[in-house]
C-alpha cells in the first residue's frame, strides 16, 4: 500500500514548491489521494521554504510531514540541518550535493547525495535542479510514473510548460540515472 510522505525544502527560488506540486499532481492523475502543503508567510523571504506532500492509496488525514517522512529532499544546507531529523527510520534522504558539502549525520536512513545543480546545468539549465531531485526520488520510490509527471507539468506551469517540458524531463531522467548508478555502484 502506498503512503508516501515527502518533505521538500530549499531556498526560495530553488523550485521546491513546484517539485511538490508536480508530485501531488501526478499522484492525482494516477488516482491516488494526495495533498500538498506549503510553508507560508514572511519567513519565506530569504529563508527556507518547504512543502509537504502526501501520496496515498487511502484518503489523506494529516497533510503535515514534520516527522516520519518517507522521504526528505533538501536543496541546500540550512534545509539539511533543519529537516534531517524528519526522516522516518529507514526512510530516504535526498540531498543536493551541488550546494551541500556536509554529509548527513543519521545512519538509520538511506541517503543519496545528488549534484542536482551540476546535473541540471549539464542538461542545459541549472534551474532545473529540482527536477533532477524529483527524478532521483521517483527512480527509488516509483510512487508515480515519469509520464504522469509530464502530464502534471502542463497543469503546474500552464502556458510556459510546452517550452520547458523537454528540458525538464531530461533533468528528471538525469536525476533518475544518477541515483540508479549510485545504487548500482553501492551494490557492486
Amino acid at each position, binding site marked *: 500500500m502506498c503512503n508516501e510522505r515527502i518533505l521538500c525544502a530549499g*531556498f526560495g527560488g530553488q523550485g521546491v514548491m513546484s517539485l511538490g506540486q508536480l508530485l501531488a499532481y501526478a499522484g492525482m492523475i494516477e488516482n491516488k489521494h494526495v495533498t500538498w502543503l506549503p510553508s507560508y508567510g514572511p519567513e519565506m523571504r*530569504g529563508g527556507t521554504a518547504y512543502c509537504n506532500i502526501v501520496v496515498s492509496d487511502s484518503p489523506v488525514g494529516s497533510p503535515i510531514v514534520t516527522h516520519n517522512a518517507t522521504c526528505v529532499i533538501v536543496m*541546500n544546507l*540550512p534545509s539539511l540541518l533543519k529537516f534531517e531529523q524528519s526522516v522516518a527510520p529507514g526512510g530516504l534522504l535526498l540531498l543536493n550535493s551541488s550546494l551541500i558539502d556536509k554529509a548527513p549525520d543519521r545512519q538509520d536512513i538511506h541517503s543519496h547525495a545528488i549534484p542536482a545543480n551540476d546535473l541540471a546545468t549539464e542538461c542545459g539549465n541549472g534551474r532545473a535542479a529540482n527536477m533532477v531531485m524529483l527524478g532521483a526520488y521517483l527512480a527509488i520510490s516509483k510512487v508515480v510514473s515519469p509520464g504522469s509527471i509530464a502530464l502534471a507539468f502542463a497543469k503546474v506551469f500552464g502556458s510556459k510548460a510546452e517550452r520547458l517540458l523537454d528540458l525538464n524531463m531530461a533533468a528528471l531522467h538525469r536525476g533518475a540515472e544518477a541515483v540508479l548508478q549510485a545504487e548500482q555502484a553501492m551494490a557492486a
Partner: protein
Amino acid sequence: MAELRGRVRIAADRCKGCGLCTIACPEEVLVIDHRTVNLKGYSPAVVAQPSGCLGCGNCALMCPDSVITVERFGKQRRAAHV
C-alpha cells in the same frame, strides 16, 4: 599611487547582496562578488577598488542593512598611507 582618502569595510556575513551600495559609489569601489555565497545564501558586496574610495559615505547611506563602515582620512593620514 594616488593618496588614500577613505576606507570602506563591509560585514560580508551580514550583507544581503542587494547591490545598492555598488551603484551609490561614485568611484565604483564596490561590486557584488557573484563567486561567493555567504551563510545567509547571498553573494555579498566586496571592495574591488580599495584605492578609489573617497570616504564619501554614499555606500553606507544606501545600505539597508547597515553593514558598511566608512572611514575618511585627514591630509596627514593620507600622506602616511601613501
